[in-house]
């Protein structure tokens, strides 16, 4: 069976399982809405006060990319837990014995995580719009592309790492240890322009800094700016590297 139909087969199976779980709509869809509902009133105050570096009244265009990265870091990044469960139940072994390409086994799962994050993005943007987000349509569409790249990268990485670590007890702390610094260093909640030089340098070593800057510029309508191009480049490069790493780990003979 060739790669694309095989990946779609796995994707369909994973989606079917997700949709069947009652936790999915509750956690998956309410999560982005809750971020905005609880953070929204505070942001409006902060924006109104015109914090240095933060354009007054444009608070939403500033914060939404950060919230999307947060959804990515606590969603697809933890997707590897499902591969650990599949290892334990023997499902993964059973699929590894079939002639299906090992990459398709990864791609189907990554596609499912990407679709989920894109749906969450749509919900978040809709709720943000209700709260007052105004941005050009092209900028909003670019959000989806950025999010897709992030989802692909983080999901592939997570699944690969899950195969390597194989135990929930070690996997979850490892991911938490990575996710929180990445989140804080990416300028999610406050602009990195406020940061002292050492923090700024550290931040520049993480991919999400550039991705968020790119997403913000897109929402302001600055399509031509280097920020969007750099952000897109970093997002795609990260996705490609993570996918390659995930593919290698899935293809290992003794996984």
């Amino acid at each position, binding site marked *: *069976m060739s790669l694309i139909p095989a990946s779609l087969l796995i994707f369909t*199976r994973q989606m079917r*399982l997700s949709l069947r*779980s009652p936790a999915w709509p509750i956690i998956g869809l309410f999560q982005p809405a809750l971020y905005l509902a609880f953070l929204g009133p505070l942001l409006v105050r902060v924006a109104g006060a015109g914090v240095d570096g933060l354009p007054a009244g444009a608070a939403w265009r500033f914060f939404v990319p950060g919230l999307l990265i947060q959804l990515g870091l606590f969603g697809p990044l933890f997707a590897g837990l499902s591969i650990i469960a*599949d290892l334990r139940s023997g499902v993964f072994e*059973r699929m590894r*014995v*079939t*002639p299906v390409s090992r990459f398709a086994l990864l791609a189907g799962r990554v596609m499912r995580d990407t679709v989920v994050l894109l749906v969450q993005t749509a919900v978040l943007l809709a709720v943000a719009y209700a709260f007052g987000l105004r941005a050009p349509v092209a900028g909003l569409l670019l959000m989806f592309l950025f999010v897709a790249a992030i989802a692909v990268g983080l999901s592939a990485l997570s699944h690969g790492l899950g195969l390597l670590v194989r135990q929930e007890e070690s996997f979850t702390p490892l991911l938490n240890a990575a996710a929180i610094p990445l989140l804080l260093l990416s300028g999610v909640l406050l602009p990195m322009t406020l940061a002292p030089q050492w923090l700024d340098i550290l931040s520049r070593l993480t991919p999400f800094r550039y991705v968020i800057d790119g997403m913000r510029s897109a929402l302001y309508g600055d399509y031509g700016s280097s920020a969007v191009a750099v952000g897109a480049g970093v997002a795609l490069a990260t996705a490609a590297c993570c996918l390659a790493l995930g593919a290698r780990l899935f293809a290992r*003979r003794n996984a």
Partner: protein
Amino acid sequence: MSASGAAVPIIEATGLAHTFRVGGRQVEAVRGVDFEVRPGEIIGFLGPNGAGKTTTMRILTTLLKPTAGRAVVVGADVGADPGAVRRRIGYVAQSGGTDGNCRVAEELVTQARLYGIAKQDAVRRAADLCERLDLTGLADRPIRTLSGGQRRRTDIALGLVHQPPLVFLDEPSVGLDPQSRSDLWAHIRRLRDDLDTTVFLSTHYLDEADTLCDRILVMNHGRIIAEGTPDALKRRISGDVISLTLGGDADRAKAVLAECPGLDEIAVSGQTVRLTARGGEQALVWLLRTADQADLDLRSVNIARPTLDDVFLALTGSSLKENPS
């Protein structure tokens, strides 16, 4: 019955070995294993847990790369051409391979499609298998609601949905109640009888190996220590034990009965003469006649057939029953 007229073995393993690195230590799970399997056989790996059966099976099913040796399975080398091997084998792992939240029929259909079978065909085969393996009416049930036996049969269905010529079953009846076990054995026999499927199973249950397998490979500590049909193994390794309880002089009886044809050992214990002889059934006839002619006061006779546990005991010095893991 079995189609063992074919010359080409369906499995050929030469010098297979696998060493795991656990913590800092090396664990030699498989230490140089050579064997052949003919098409249409039901062949069994018999040995305690930790003998290397699962590891060997995982090498043959391309799930593990051997650290030495090679294997040709269904005509393809497991190292050089794993894809070709995977297309034509089925594998049912010891702990199964199902997700509790999936439904039986949908997993069977997905599994068939993973082998490249078209959807319509896959749906038909799933229904077919459900019928053959007594899973009718369970098609839309989530797997976690099935009983142990039903779940095991689902696992087996998943391994058979693409009708492979060779199927590997790792400890297929562990955890099943006696009725489910014998039902499972019947299903396995039908696989071979009706579809000419070669079945390679591993087990630590003596009765399973004895009643189901055409040939047994006895495995211990990563090596194959004996090989043959259950009867041949029992005949070759251990003789029948015949106990004669006498009313009179047991030592005189011993002297008389020591002439028994095929005798290996003879000993007296109180009023009982215990003999170990090959071809116990024939020896018993001679013994009864001789005891009668010599006027020995024979009270009772007992004949114990050798079991595979006796075989294992003779080969390894430990009993499989006392030492399952």
